[in-house]
């Protein structure tokens, strides 16, 4: 089983469009996972038929029982996240600021603070319109813990792939280099980076490559919108060569990405032969990996 995580550093480079197109070509050969859980949108292209829905319980929020509270103020004084304030004669917790660390619960002399479990979102097992198993999630509004939800989605995708005996897992990762990204790296065999020929794309690529090198995971790169800036494209190629990141393909700017998206289709379902063959080349590259 080969787990390929598609990442980008910078957002909006075409990562999800390319992942969905690879999923279209892979059909039943892949389990697909959307790990960009706080802006999960691959389902718009995969039209999944939902098989299972689960609540994602993660993290805690402090709750003060005002009838027991003696208003000593120790919780406010000790809270490192300024989450407890005094208003209209009572202490209240602001759930947005509460980190769920339980310190107030432990130190409250009146034992007036309870830690309540958060339902931070939901995760789903579905069947995509390409026949593949699709694992995805939805983070609750103003909820945190996206890194843990990514971990959940990954674990379920991995067990589904074993259960179905499927050779590939295709994971759409989050942008950036932080917690959800690091969480989606665990267990990855290869990182396929989708960048774009812009100064921002290059800058973000450099940081992402440093991250995956730290975790000793092999990466390769697709330069999307490669005709935006020739000089930057050359800089990306030089950087990739120097860092042992092979360039799989370069795709010129194309309105096909938006046009197909508006129809709920992937780019390989367009009439653009040159884009289709580029994605086919990328899929062949994925299949040729050990």
């Amino acid at each position, binding site marked *: 089983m080969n787990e390929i995580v598609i990442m*980008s550093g*910078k*957002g*909006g*480079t075409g990562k*999800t469009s390319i992942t969905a197109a690879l999923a279209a070509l892979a059909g039943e050969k892949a389990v697909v996972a959307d790990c960009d*859980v*706080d*802006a999960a*949108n691959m389902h*718009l292209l995969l039209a999944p038929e939902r098989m299972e829905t689960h609540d994602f319980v993660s*993290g*805690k929020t402090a709750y003060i029982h005002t009838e027991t509270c003696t208003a000593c103020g120790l919780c406010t004084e*000790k809270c*490192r996240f300024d989450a407890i304030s005094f208003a209209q004669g009572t202490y209240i917790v602001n759930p*947005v*600021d509460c*980190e769920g*660390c*339980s*310190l107030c619960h*432990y*130190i409250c002399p009146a034992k007036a603070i309870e830690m309540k479990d958060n339902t931070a979102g939901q995760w789903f097992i579905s069947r995509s319109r390409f026949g593949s198993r699709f694992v995805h999630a939805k*983070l609750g*509004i*103003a*909820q*945190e*813990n*996206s890194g843990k939800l990514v971990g959940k989605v990954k674990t379920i995708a991995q067990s589904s792939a074993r259960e179905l005996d499927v050779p590939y897992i295709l994971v759409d990762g*989050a*942008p*950036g*280099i*932080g*917690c*959800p*990204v690091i969480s989606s790296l665990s267990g990855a065999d290869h990182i396929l980076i989708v960048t*774009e*020929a*812009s*100064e*921002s*794309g290059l*800058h*973000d690529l450099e*940081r992402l490559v*440093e*991250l995956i090198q*730290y975790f000793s995971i092999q990466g390769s790169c697709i330069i999307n*919108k490669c005709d*935006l*800036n020739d*000089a*930057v494209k050359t800089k990306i190629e030089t950087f990739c060569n120097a860092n042992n990141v092979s360039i799989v393909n370069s795709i010129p*700017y194309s309105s096909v990405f*938006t046009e197909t*998206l*508006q129809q*709920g289709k992937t780019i390989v379902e367009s009439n653009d032969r040159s884009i289709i063959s580029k994605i086919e080349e990328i899929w062949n590259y994925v299949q040729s990996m050990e």
Partner: protein
Amino acid sequence: MNIAIASGKGGTGKTLIATNLAFTAGKRFPVALYDLDVEEPNDHLFFDSADTPEHGVDKMIPDVDPQKCTLCGTCTQVCEFHAIITLPDQVMVFPELCHSCYSCLEMCPEGAISSGTKTIGTISAEKQGPVSLVTGRLKITEFATAALISETKKEPSASNNITFYDAPPGSSCPFIETVKDSDYVILVGEPSPFGLHDMDIVARTLRNLHTPYSVIVNKDVEGNTIIDEYCRENNIDIIGRLPLSMNIAREYANGQLIVKNIQGMDTLFEQLLDTIIAKTSGEHK
């Protein structure tokens, strides 16, 4: 007055709008631009940013004194983040997992834990003419995005009345940390199904936080009205539009400000700024 520029989806033009807006405002008064997309900060690419001195940002991690520790396991029990583990012969700290809540330090019955430090990133502050540019930069392999955003916001800058925050993508902790003390949020909407889907998530989050917001449509194409329809249904003001344009994409790709290099953009951003100033007067949290 803190005004955040956000979008949910990445690549919709947050940085484009934030940098050009800050430059335009800087022609009228001293203004600050905080790049809070600390995982991938790009605002500096659009200014003549030299090697600006940075200072490190530390977070607190527990420092266990093995002489005093009795291996009682209290720290491990109270830690909600599995960041401190009691082994038969020692206590091990996992700094990346630590949320710096001080629970272990407060609860240790032996007083064996003191506060140590770990670097999570850097902050730089520079003057770009009238624009004070403050950049948070997460150390690669670090998790503490929200903590660094919180510290970056505290960095002083020379701004008269408006501070722009370039927000991180998504709708989770980093986004919430950015907008929770913003007086006003500008959502950059991209008229595509992905753009709309993710903008809807952040719009719901902002309603939940009771933060006022409006929308700028970027990559606007005539005949594509999905953002317009959404805003009409939800009673959200659209305060400006930028066309889908290869010229804009090329200038952006080259690290250039479009108000300097594309004719007509300076007027467009002047008008945008007027609208924002009019909208936000009186919106103080």
